[in-house]
Each structure stands twice: as C-alpha cells, then as structure tokens.
C-alpha cells in the first residue's frame, strides 16, 4: 500500500450524484464531512461511514470511502462494533432525526453511556424527509403533518438528552454554516470517545417552519458566547435554549474511558488483524475434563 503524501478533497470525490432536492440542507453537511476528513488528513480507506435509511442515510454514497449503509435506525450498533473490530478505522455514523431519535432512540441512549470512540452526526431536519414529510421526534410542537394533523406534541430535546445520558462530546452544528460544522466534525472525530453532533438541517421541501432563514436569525455560537464546554451545568442550561436563540457549537466535552477500554482483550493488534488458530481453544477444554 502506497503512503499518501497528502489527502485532498478530490480523493473523496465520487461519481454518484446526490439524490437530494435542490437546496436541501444536506448539501451543507456533505462538504463539511469531507473538509473535516481532509483537515485530519485521513485517507478514504481509513474512514468508514455507517448510515441508516433516510435522506441523511444517503450521504455516505457521495463520499468515496468505506461505507456500510445499513438499516433505518441501526447505525450505532454497527458502527460501534466495526470500531471494536478494527480500531484503526475512523468510524463515523450518520443518520436522520427519525433514524436516530425515533427508530434508533435506544441505541442512542446506550451509545452515549458506553462512549465508543466513534463519531455520530445526526442530520436533524425535524421531519421524515424520505417518507414524505411526516412529523419527527424533533418536530417543533404544533408542527402539522399528515400524522399529526392537529400539530406535533412535545419533542425530544436531543442535546439535553445527550448530556443527561452521559454524552462525552455533545455538540450542535448548522447546515447553513459549513465551515463551523466542519470544525465541529473534526473535533468530534478527534475526541476520544463518542463525538455526537446534532446538525440543524433545513428540509426545503417539507419543513416550512425551520428554514435556513429561520435558523440564521436564531443560531449563535457558544464558543463566542463565553460558554465553557467543561461546565456540565452550564451545558445543561444552554441545552434548554430553543426558540429566539439557538446555540450551536460544543455544549459539553469530557474525557472518560471509552467503550473499547472496557475490553482488555482488545489491547494489542486490532482484532481484524489477528490470525485465527483453531487450536487456541485447547487449554479451555481442560476445564471440562
């Protein structure tokens, strides 16, 4: 395998044409992911993108790297395990808000406490895009769709939830600010542990409430607002903000042993590189004699 002198955005280019609607917020997330990978000088074969099903779940097809596009809602278990199998991979899970907070809510909860050393990017458009506009767990109260004709009720607040559930890197990005988002993604990948980013992603087709303009008027950067990501209490309070002012940036960050750290058997060579020897079980058989 040749040693790459440097990685450029072209190395991540594919011939796949995004199947998203023109103007979709996802077009702001795609380059942010690529830029972060380039900034970190990761080569495509060192990266594994794991996704679910939804508009967000298509993202990995538009980046040339290893891809596992699995089931709706099941990105995190697959991504966590792939990392355990080969910790040399940079593993990034991506999915939608329905995927991650609806179908996959349980995995989200448990990934937060386990703290696997992977990254998780949620394209949060507050709507089920691919299935044509139903209410999502993060739809704002009152959001009207064919499944909540009287308006959505109380939503999930993913940032607050992530902090409560033991997240070690909890951040929010905005698809309308690719550079800032790329920075967050870079930080999340570098973070030793579960780097979680909820990305405000306007769905220009179905979500007529939370538009680019709506967000632009509201978002502000935590970093420039004096927030200290080491302060969990402050993070919790910022997480409650939603409405006139919506914070983006890193809410909370801490160092904690990763999920992998719990398995001494993972020390040494990555699992995938170890030879298989059927005779290794020999000593275990003694217990049964």
């Amino acid at each position, binding site marked *: 395998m040749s040693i790459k002198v440097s990685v450029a955005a072209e190395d991540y280019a594919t011939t796949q044409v995004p199947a998203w609607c023109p103007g979709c917020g996802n077009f702001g997330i795609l380059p942010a992911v690529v830029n972060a990978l380039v900034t970190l000088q990761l080569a495509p*074969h060192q990266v*594994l993108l794991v996704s679910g099903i939804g508009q967000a779940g*298509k993202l990995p097809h538009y980046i040339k790297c290893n891809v596992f596009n*699995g089931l709706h809602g099941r990105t995190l*278990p697959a991504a966590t*395990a*792939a990392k355990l199998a*080969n910790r*040399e991979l940079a593993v990034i899970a991506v999915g939608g808000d329905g995927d991650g907070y609806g179908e996959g809510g349980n995995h989200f909860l448990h990934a937060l406490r386990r703290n696997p050393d992977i990254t998780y990017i949620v394209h949060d458009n507050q709507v089920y895009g691919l299935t044509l506009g139903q209410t999502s767990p993060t739809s704002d109260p009152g959001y009207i769709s064919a499944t909540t004709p009287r308006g959505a009720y109380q939503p999930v607040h993913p940032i607050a939830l992530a902090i409560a559930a033991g997240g070690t890197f909890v951040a929010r990005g905005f698809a309308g600010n690719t550079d800032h988002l790329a920075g967050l993604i870079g930080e999340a990948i570098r973070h030793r542990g579960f780097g979680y980013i909820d990305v405000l992603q306007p769905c220009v087709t179905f979500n007529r409430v939370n538009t680019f303009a709506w967000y632009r008027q509201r978002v502000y950067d935590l970093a420039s607002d004096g927030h200290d990501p080491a302060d969990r209490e402050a993070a919790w309070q910022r997480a409650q903000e939603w409405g006139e002012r919506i914070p983006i940036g890193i809410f909370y960050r801490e160092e904690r042993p990763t999920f992998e750290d719990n398995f001494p058997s993972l020390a040494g060579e990555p699992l995938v590189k170890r030879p298989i020897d059927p005779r*290794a079980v020999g000593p275990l058989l003694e217990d049964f004699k």
Partner: protein
Amino acid sequence: MAGEITLTVGGQAGQGVQSIGLTLARAFARGGLHVFAQQDYESRVRGGHNSFKLRMGPRPVMAALQETNILVALDPLSLDVHMAQLTDPGVAIFDGEKTQVAGPRRGYFPVPLERLAQESGGNRLMQNSVAAGAAAGLTGFDFSIISDAVAEQFKGRGPEVEEGNRRAAQAGYDYALTQFGGRCDCSLSTMAAPKRLLLDGNEALVLGALAGGCRFMAGYPMTPSTPILQYMATKGAGLGAVGIQTEDEIAAINMAIGASFAGVRAMTATAGGGFSLMVEGLGLAGMTETPVVIVVGQRPGPATGFPTRTEQGDLEFVLHAAQGEFARIVLTPGTPEQAFALGFRAFNLAERYQLPVIILTDQQLADSYRTIEPFDLSSLQIDRGELLLDAPPDYMRYRLTPSGISPRAVPGLSSAVVVADSDEHAEDGHITEDGAVRTAMVRKRVGKLELARADIVPPEHYGEQHPELLLIGWGSTYGALREAVDDLRADGVSAGMLHLSQVWPFPNEQVQAAMKAAKKSVMVENNASGQLARVMRGETGLAPDGHILKYDGRPFSPSEITTQARRWLR
C-alpha cells in the same frame, strides 16, 4: 441397560440441585463412566421445583430415562414429584429429620443430611455435600474421585471449606454404604477410559465457535442461550474475544454484522423471542452479504411461553424469517459433538457463502450434559472463502462473478474502499433503481443456496439401512431417537433413524433415498404441527406415514418414542 444407573436430584431453585448433580456427573465421568444429564427447572430463582437427572454407565448414554434408581430429594415436594419414577429396587434419599413423611415407603432412605453436615463438616450448609456423598455411597463408587469433585466445587474458598465438604461427603458416603449398601442394585465401578469431556450443548457450541475463530459476540440474555454470551465474555476474553451485553437484540445482531463487515468472525445467540427482534438484521446480512452466525436456542412459544423448557417450534420461523428472498443455512445439531462441529463449521460456511448461518438448538441440547471424546482440534481447517486481503483499487464489493460469489474485501486493510448497502445496489455497492441489475443481484443472493448444497452435512442414518420403520428427526431428539432405535431393534423390530443436523439447504436426495429404502417413515418432532414434515413435503413432495409429536415443554424419552412408534408396526 446393564450396569447403568439413573440418579435424580430434586429440590427448589436455589437449593443447589444443579451443583450436586454436576459434581456427581463430573466425578462419575472422571471415573471412566459415560454420563448423560438432563435439567428441568422453572423460571424463578428460588423455590418451585427443579431436577437434575443423571444417567451413567459403562456404555455411551444419550438420553434421560423416565425411571430413576436413586433419588436425592432436597425438599418434600421432590419426594412427591419423583417417587413414582423410582425403580424397584430403588432408593430415595431425603433428610428424615427435617421432612416428616407419612409412614415408611419402599425405597425411602432417610439420611440426616443437616446433622451429618454439622457433625462432620462443622457447618449445616454442607448438607449438599452429604447428599452427594450419600448418593455416591449407594453406588459404592471410588470415594476419592467423589471427594475430589466435591472439593473442587469449593476451590478458592480456603482449605477449611474444602476439607469440611470433603468430610461431609465422606459422612454421607459412609452412612449410605453402611446403612443401605447394596439395597438398590446400583453399584458402579470406575473404568479405565480416556479422559472424556463433560459438557452441555451450549458449552460445546461456544467452544466450536471459538475454535472457528469467532472473536466477537454481542447478545442480550435469554434462556437457554445466555451461557454462550457469558462464556464469550469471561473465558472467550482470554482468547482475545469480545463479548458484549447489548441494550437489546436489535443492537446485538447489528453489532455482529458491523464487526463482521469490518472483518472479524462474529456471532450472536438468543432464543426465539430475541430472534424475532433480529429478523430485520438477518435480512440485512442477507442483503449486504455479510457473514454472521446466529444461535437460536428454542424454547416453547409463542411469546414468552415456557422460558426454561424445551421445544422444536421455531424451525419454519428461522427458515423464512425476514422480508425478501436470500440464501441462508440452518444447522440443527443434536449432540454436544455436533454442536462443537457445527459451531466451528458455521463460520466457514458463513464466510464461504457470505450469508447468515443459523444454528438452531433448544433448551434440551443447550442444558444437557454428556461425556464425549475429546475434540480433534488438529483436523480443523479455517476457510475464509473468497476473502480478499489485498483488494485492487477498482474493487467492487458486489461484483458478479462466474463462481456466484463476490470476492469480499474488508475496510481498512487495503487502499480500496468497500461499499455495502441494504438498498438494492449495483456491483459497486451504490444504490440502484435498475431492474436488470436487480434481477442479477437477486439471482446471486438466492443462487447461493444451490451453491451451498455442495456443503450440506448429510443426515445421519443409524440402525437398519432398509428398515420397516424409519424414525426421522432433527436437532436435540438425536439421543432419544437413537436409543429408541436401539430398543426397538433389541425387541426385534427393524428400525432405523435418519437425523438431520442440517435442515437448510434441505438434504433432498438423502432424505428421499432413506424414505424410499424404508417401509414406513415416521417423523418425530418436539412440536405440535410437524414442522420438518411440512418443510420436507414442500421440498420433496413426500409426506411421512405418521408423526410422533410432543409439545408439553419436555423432551422425549426413548420409551415415549418406542411406545408411539409401535402404532405404525401393527
């Protein structure tokens, strides 16, 4: 059979039924005897009624009998439940100073378990060792072996505890030998024999999986498969394996698939209820062509059912689980030997054909112990199929090839990238909407079933090759079936057994040939609707002449089979 003894330990959950039984089983096995042990327990942690049935003798034993020569009753209920099974002569041990029984009955042998424990070991908690010793005393078996097995149970708890229990066992042994020796016609002597293994189906299976290179397991506790996860997480870790208790079964299967996609042999294990939650993941493995091994330990359903009992009710479920069509392999081991062999083989098959392999066991296999000859590890060969360690830059995961298998690279090991997709995909792994590509990909995924026919484990034909009566079965009924055939033949009946340890792809030819060679065929299944029979008919058009079905949550004994089998001989 001559020289053979059945010993039953009965008591409440938490009284140590299993530990007494297993200690004795180990001791008799070490003394060169063949041992089979079957467990019966309830879904509770204390109380209720459990039993551990131990059959042993000079020749191989494969099933439990209904009769028992020796009963160790740790509580009064156990006397009620098991006295009817006592042979004549036969002996029932119980603590006569604690349990008041109405009048003496045949076989009653009160032993002051608690008092002897106190007197000999210095602690009334050692009464189980007294009981074990007393049971052994009835057989006159070499006490030193018994004593070592008892002591071993307390290893790590200090020499005092070990010694105390040894003395307690000795007290029981002596008491029985002197007070009751010879009265039950159940003497056993040590035999010179190679050191055999004593293990249950779960243990054999997980050892096979470890030998097969499984280094990743994710699972969620569920009877009867929990011990597999526990073994992986504890002992497996010593071999470098990872065993993860997940939040649910959905995570478990998706983790196993994620690890396998990343190149590590991976498995999960559950029962039917947990497998229900894995069905979508099963299809994901089929679609992405990711090898994965899934152990489904059957228990009586539907839903929660009988959590701690046995049934063969999930066969058609695992054969057809998940939307869409794709090849899968279903293995149905019936013995610890087969559990080990197929636990090993499953990983080769999964990688060779890049598909999910289901190992369908049940509580009866999972929880029953048997002595077996040590595994021959030297003959085991790892076959990773068309694994590509150095993939070319233009690598495409789903390339259509003449072999019907797409060479499989794993991410990160070469500079090629690997793209896998749960949507219908083109050769490069990216989403497609093309009908022709779809058709080709379906053919590949479904076609692997035909390829896998080359690797079918042939059914085992035992007994007469051209029998009047062929008993057909699969999975854990192996032992009862085989002994039933022996018993029928000993009675002059021309009988044979055909046992399938692989049900899918279905061994059409072998089954048809065997049925043709038999005058009558009867399907023996531990379920209510005769599932294998229906599968067989769907595949071959052939129906058996009859069914022997049992679905009360309990395993077959050989005599239950022979009794019913005779109906087709008239």
